[in-house]
């Protein structure tokens, strides 16, 4: 399962992070060392062990089916890079 530089480019694309060849080569070296450590896990016998997703085994609570949010779009959009008429502006997607 050795990670290749091509894998680095692929996961960077999946993660939507631009990366050039030099940076990919550099991060590749560090990731190999990190995965060498992570791969210690492969030697552990985990047959029949129930995965632990969370610290507490609690049920997700349900709240009343009622409208609780108030309209705060102006407040929330005050920190946006670009807005117009209450809408977030992004580059044109459909020509």
């Amino acid at each position, binding site marked *: *399962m050795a*990670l290749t530089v091509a*894998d*680095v480019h692929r*996961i*960077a*694309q*999946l*993660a*939507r*992070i*631009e*990366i050039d060849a030099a940076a990919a080569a550099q*991060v590749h070296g*560090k*990731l190999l*060392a*990190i*995965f*060498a*450590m*992570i*791969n*210690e*896990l*492969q030697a*552990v016998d*985990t047959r029949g*062990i*129930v*995965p*632990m*997703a*969370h*610290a*507490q085994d*609690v049920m*997700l*609570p349900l*709240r009343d089916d009622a409208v609780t949010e108030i309209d*705060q779009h102006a*407040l*929330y*959009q*005050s*920190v*946006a*890079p*670009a807005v117009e008429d209450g809408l*977030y502006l*992004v*580059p044109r*997607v459909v020509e």
Partner: protein
Amino acid sequence: MTGVASTGTVAELAAALRARKLSSVELTTALLARIEQAQSTLNTFVTIDAEGALEQARAADAVLTRPDEPPPLAGVPIAHKDVIMTAGLPTTCSSRMLANFIAPYDAHVAGGLRTAGTVLVGKTNMDEFAMGSSNETSWFGPVRNPWNRDFVPGGSSGGSAAAVAARLVPAATGTDTGGSIRQPASLSGVCGLKPTYGVCSRYGLVAFASSLDTPGMFARTAEDCGLLLNAMAGHDARDSTSLDRPREDYTRDLELPLEGLRIGMPAEYFGDGIDADVAAAVDQALAQFRKQGATTVPIVLPNVRLSVPVYYVIASAEASSNLSRFDGVRYGHRAKDYTDLADMYSKSRAEGFGAEVKRRILIGTYVLSHGYYDAYYLKAQQVRRLIADDFARAYQQCDVIMGPTAPAPAFRIGDKTDDPVQMYLNDIFTIAGNLTGAPGISIPCGFDRRGLPIGLQIQANYFAEARLLNVAHRYQLDTDWHARVPGGFAP
């Protein structure tokens, strides 16, 4: 001022304010001056809100002069780690991504401390998005250790730890995902408590790894940690993992004697790889507890050595998902030049995140990607269960578990930045507490030959915060490590 030092503990300051021996405006003004003076050398703060703090201090003084009972921490200045959202103030996570982000609302824990009457003086520097163990990944530059400025304060809550150590504030909040409160508390010589997961709401924390993130605090005494926890704990319907439990006073058991306390000593915490001065200081602390009537019991935690690899799978996976929200559309950094929407996302994220954050997003993306999920993510969750089972077995034999918080004292700035695995191994003793969700505290227990602080970690079973604070408090009654002040920061 009337003979009351502005650098007292939370308990001392709250009492002095209440007795009107000191006003919150006097106290806040004095601490703001200390903060301003230390900023160029320690870099502990990202935002200092002098104007807002003085306004809150004036309001606190008005409350304190009224005849009715004031809130418990009325007028006491504190600081928040800059991952905790504070309405109207910047919350940057020490990242370029959020350098201009103003939080629209308060985190639950920030609200609790506000209701308790505290005065917020500012937001502390941290590792970017809480990813780091040295506070060197901050976009705003590293925090320096008050005991020696060539050394790191620990991380990720390094600014909060250093600010409390340097007596800039009596207490500060932090968050602990893999040791980010306990490890900097240890390296900076203060107390740091990570409560049980679910006791303090995560609402309003900028999320890193949601199944591990835990808000907590730094202070100089265990008693002060309890006072802050009283204000921060409690059920919050806005966090689905917040636990609905009866309210408790976490300081109620502080004075209980330690007769009969059973201290578990895990073989794995006392083996090779521990700095000799750290081992000696921890041994001395254990001897002190025996003197107080406690007994030590050898225990084993055979899977704890796997906690670092488990953590780097689980935390990175959750981080890659949580941090996908930073896309330059609704908030945060947006690149100036881009060709289309996809290019805008990837350039904004490439520019906005630092190297360590990007590396963890890449790890997380990889372990969650098609074909690798079972081998990495599921496997890590299974080993997480084995680690939790180790602790459950251990607590049948002992009440608390003790050992070093970190394998070594603080290291020099720059020493580990090129070797992420070495950096990650700093958290070898703290990560398990996040994986299980049980509470832990680090308290000062000595210094190494260079004068750098050493921390003792005390862990306990779920919801045993009052017991943990009791054990730490009794130790602090008989020792003075926690009262030592770094050179140049004397009151």
